């Protein structure tokens, strides 16, 4: 159940937390006492506007927002794309950039896309992987793992992997190369379908402020 007076915002803990808190500060929201090492999971700021934050795992943010336990959420597109939740995607915040890629062991780097047909792919993102290969008209066998995906080709469990790549260091360290770039991912501001309508007076100005900040930031960067 949503609380009526508080605007509840779900934040991803981990690397996204610091830039998100910076953005919230710029937008004039209270964030005192929240930092990446804090153990509390809920922070309430009564006042005007009344804001409540919940700090949770990035992969849990869309669930909180979809079911209305949070009105807004800050989370990576990679998580949204994989979960396909029924939430509104309001703003591309630009930070936390990475991309989905198909990667293979270095000795296979000359493979063409077609040659991947009917092969095995290990991934933490079965939905994204499945959709990508299906759209290319290819059929692959997907093996869902929960971490250290790079291990799978080394051990002969899979021929390739689909994973998110940010600096590319993990791939290099495991002697793998990127074969296909699937899609970009950055942090997004998402919103519950109903909150957007029932708390519109609180949410819309905040979204516009953040949009303006993001646009301004782009200009400064250029």
């Amino acid at each position, binding site marked *: *159940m*949503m609380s*009526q007076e508080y605007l509840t915002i779900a934040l991803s803990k981990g690397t996204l937390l610091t830039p998100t808190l910076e953005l919230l500060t710029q937008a004039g929201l209270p964030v005192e006492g929240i930092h990446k090492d804090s153990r509390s999971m809920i922070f309430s700021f009564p006042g005007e506007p009344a804001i409540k934050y919940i700090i949770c795992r990035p992969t849990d943010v869309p669930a909180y927002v*979809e*079911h*209305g*336990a949070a009105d807004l959420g800050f989370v990576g*597109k990679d998580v949204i794309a994989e979960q396909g939740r*029924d939430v*509104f*995607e*309001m*703003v*591309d915040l630009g930070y936390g950039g990475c991309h989905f890629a198909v990667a293979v062991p270095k000795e296979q780097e000359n493979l063409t896309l077609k040659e991947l047909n009917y092969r095995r792919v290990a991934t933490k993102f079965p939905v994204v992987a499945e959709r990508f290969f299906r759209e290319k008209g290819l059929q692959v066998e997907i093996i869902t793992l929960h971490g250290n995906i790079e291990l799978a080709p080394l051990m002969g469990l899979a021929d390739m992997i689909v994973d998110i790549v940010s600096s590319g260091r993990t791939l290099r360290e495991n002697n793998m190369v990127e074969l296909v770039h699937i899609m970009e991912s950055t942090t*997004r501001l998402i*919103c*519950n*379908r*109903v*909150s*957007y*309508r*029932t*708390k*519109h007076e609180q949410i*819309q100005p905040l*979204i516009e402020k953040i949009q303006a900040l993001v646009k301004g930031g782009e200009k400064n960067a250029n």
Partner: protein
Amino acid sequence: MRSREIPKGLRDLLPDEAKNRRNIENKAAQLFHSFGYDEVVTPTFEFMDVIEKGGSTLRDKLFLFMDREGGILSLRPEMTVSIARLAATHLQDEPMPQRLFYSANVFRHVQPQMAQYREFWQLGIEMLGASGAWADAEVISLAVMTLKELGLEHFKVSLNQVGIFNSLLAESSTNPNEREQIRNLVERKDLVELSRLLERLPIHDDLKETIARLPVLHGDMEVLNQIPYVENNRAASQAVEELIKVYEALQIYGVSDHVVIDMGVLRGLDYYTGVVFEGYSPELGYGLLGGGRYDNLLSQFGYDCPATGFAIGMDRLALVLGQQEQEQRYLLGGKNLEKMVREASKLRDKGIIVEIDIEGNSQEVLEQKIKEKTGYSLLYLGNE
């Protein structure tokens, strides 16, 4: 062995829940009836050919099976298409407009979760054979009144006219596939992907800006002034005028406090042609009701007739409304059945709920029993 299981996404309603549903149903039916709406019942399953006339939105969610003659059957995923079929086959010669209501279980193969079941109950009305703002306004105000009548306070009904969006899109030099994509993104409010897609497409800049603004336009009639480009498109400005007329009529009905204009509401189903609306409660993260005008659906069944209506999800409504208060009951005990039956029937005539103690317990035993039950009083007929 699955002798104690039920299929995924289904559920039993226990007495309290069933009572809640019955209460919602009764109050709504009474309200609909007072506006001249009569109940209709259609079969639980239909030929798939019938269901498909409603468009492709629900196609992958149908429960399909075959009859022994090889016909493909579908459990109904909603009621509007069935009622359109019923009207086209049975009501063509009746005087118009026709006002109909229903309360029915519908079936969709969805991923079950809180407030989303594979069998759920819909309560709704359809007004057939009437076009124009007054008809839309009656239907929308009835939706608002139903929620009020059931005791809901903080809810909003979002209102739009799909003609605004559709006419603007038709004007752009996009192909049907691209239009479907844009529509999808506006409906899902995926503003990030929408602005990217629009950037790629060869659309006039002013039109592009208007389409990008539509999903976030939300408020009172004032928002209609924020889309100046619409004046260049005749069909779109006509749609805007229609929306204004409906909104003004809703002010007369005294329900406009609960109504907001929301240009992002397009409704998922393919058959809507005019004013559309959705209802939300802040206590629930999912929509409560939806409806709108569907002037072309009946012609799919060979009967060209305008129509408008809405459906409320009873299961979701029950979640928001919570439990009803338990009414007072009497447990009637004694040794002389004849006396007991006579007394019970006298009390029942006065509208009191009476359970006869069919076990013939003594007064002491019954006094003990009453303590374990809530809402019961004991009435014991002695030997005098």
